[in-house]
């Protein structure tokens, strides 16, 4: 029995199997519509997250399974002081698989160590969010046909953005990827990720504060939000905030086949005018996230 807590819990072969399954689901949805009949997914969300929970629930329903949902931690056993370990043991008696979001880092691992059923980490604080990375990977795969030889730009908050860290980790297992890291000085990629992942694996990389200058190089542009609360003073925020807002003007010198990704929700970092551009992939990315969750559920339930 396997759980997925970190994206690196999945081997490159397993990732490819998930991508192949997701692509097959997209092509033949009816083939999968009853495949999880009689199986139950428990969504244990100890902090609010409408979109991820709904994506998991939609995924299970589209596989013909059922969902047991605990969406309000305030009224659950956790509010009475039950430990994550005990909750996992109890839910193992009711469901076949768990998707868990928790504000504390490592909580889904504790659940996996104690549950008798597979556990999927649906986000643990600012730590891991592997199914978002699965959505990112399927989007890149479908847009580019693979992962090797790509120039991938990450723009915005590279310091605190867990989706950025996970995607860099996942991509570092492929060949000849160039990482372009675009952020204000204050929000640069943490040095341990640069050292332990990018430099250790001998990937080419470029760090810059200027999105415009590197735009023509990029095959993928992964946007994230620059949040006001990350800055020490308001003046710095005001000085920098607009540099990382993507507008049609800034895309003028971009490749014709650039793919723009964003983990969403966005606030203002991508202008709404870009939504109609063929290069905008962020809403497709949401849909692909559901298909990858379907594929992951199938893999962990060993249904296929």
């Amino acid at each position, binding site marked *: 029995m396997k759980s997925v807590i970190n994206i690196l819990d999945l081997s490159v072969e397993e990732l490819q199997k998930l991508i192949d399954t997701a692509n097959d689901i997209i092509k033949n949805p009816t083939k999968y519509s009853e495949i999880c009949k009689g199986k139950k997914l428990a969504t244990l969300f100890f902090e609010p997250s409408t979109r991820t929970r709904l994506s998991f629930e939609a995924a299970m329903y589209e596989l013909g399974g059922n969902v047991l949902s605990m969406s309000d931690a305030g009224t659950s056993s956790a509010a009475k002081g039950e430990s994550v370990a005990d909750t996992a043991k109890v839910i193992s008696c009711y469901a076949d698989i768990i998707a868990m979001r928790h504000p504390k880092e*490592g*909580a889904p691992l504790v659940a996996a160590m104690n549950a008798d059923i597979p556990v999927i980490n649906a986000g643990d*604080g600012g730590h891991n969010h592997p199914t978002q990375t699965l959505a990112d990977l399927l989007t890149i795969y479908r847009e580019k046909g693979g992962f090797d030889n790509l120039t991938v730009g990450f723009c915005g908050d590279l310091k605190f953005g867990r989706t950025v860290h996970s995607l860099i980790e996942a991509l570092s297992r492929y060949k000849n990827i160039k990482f372009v890291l675009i952020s204000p000085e204050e929000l640069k990629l943490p040095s341990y990720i640069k050292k332990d992942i990018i430099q250790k694996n001998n990937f080419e990389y470029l760090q810059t504060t200027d999105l415009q200058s590197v735009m023509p190089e990029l095959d993928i542009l992964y946007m994230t939000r620059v949040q006001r609360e990350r800055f020490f003073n308001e003046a710095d925020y005001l000085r920098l905030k607009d540099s990382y807002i993507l507008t049609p003007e800034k895309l003028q010198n971009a490749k014709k086949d650039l793919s723009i990704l964003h983990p969403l929700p966005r606030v203002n970092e991508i202008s709404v005018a870009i939504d109609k551009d063929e290069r905008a992939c962020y809403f497709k990315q949401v849909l692909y996230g559901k298909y990858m969750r379907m594929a992951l559920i199938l893999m962990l339930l060993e249904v296929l």
Partner: protein
Amino acid sequence: MNIDSIKNGIVIDHITAGKALEIYNFLGLEALSCSVAIIKNAPSKKLGKKDIIKIDSDFDVDIDILAYIDPDATVNIIKDSKLVEKKKLKLPEKITNVIKCKNPRCITTTEQELPHIFKLTDKQNRIYRCVYCESKAK
């Protein structure tokens, strides 16, 4: 300075100078009723100076804890006044309940009964990370 040699017991030698008290505390040597000698700043050809701990009983030293604190130390087992075994230490792959995770966002801060487990993730730089939140041990 003379300290009696021991008949049956353990000598922890080649301790990095200044670490003897830390090791004494981590190994829980204060609970022993036998003689325990702490020698600080003893001359050493290899290290310049070193600390030594002598324990006058067959105490079961937790090699993993010792290796985590000072992997260059050696453990000598003495039986009938003779050295019968010399143990070299190597960094343990995993340590449990030796140190605590300091990350306030880690699940171990709210679930008090969870064991604090750290894994060796970088042997060269002796880096251990919490298995739950992956924070570096401090």
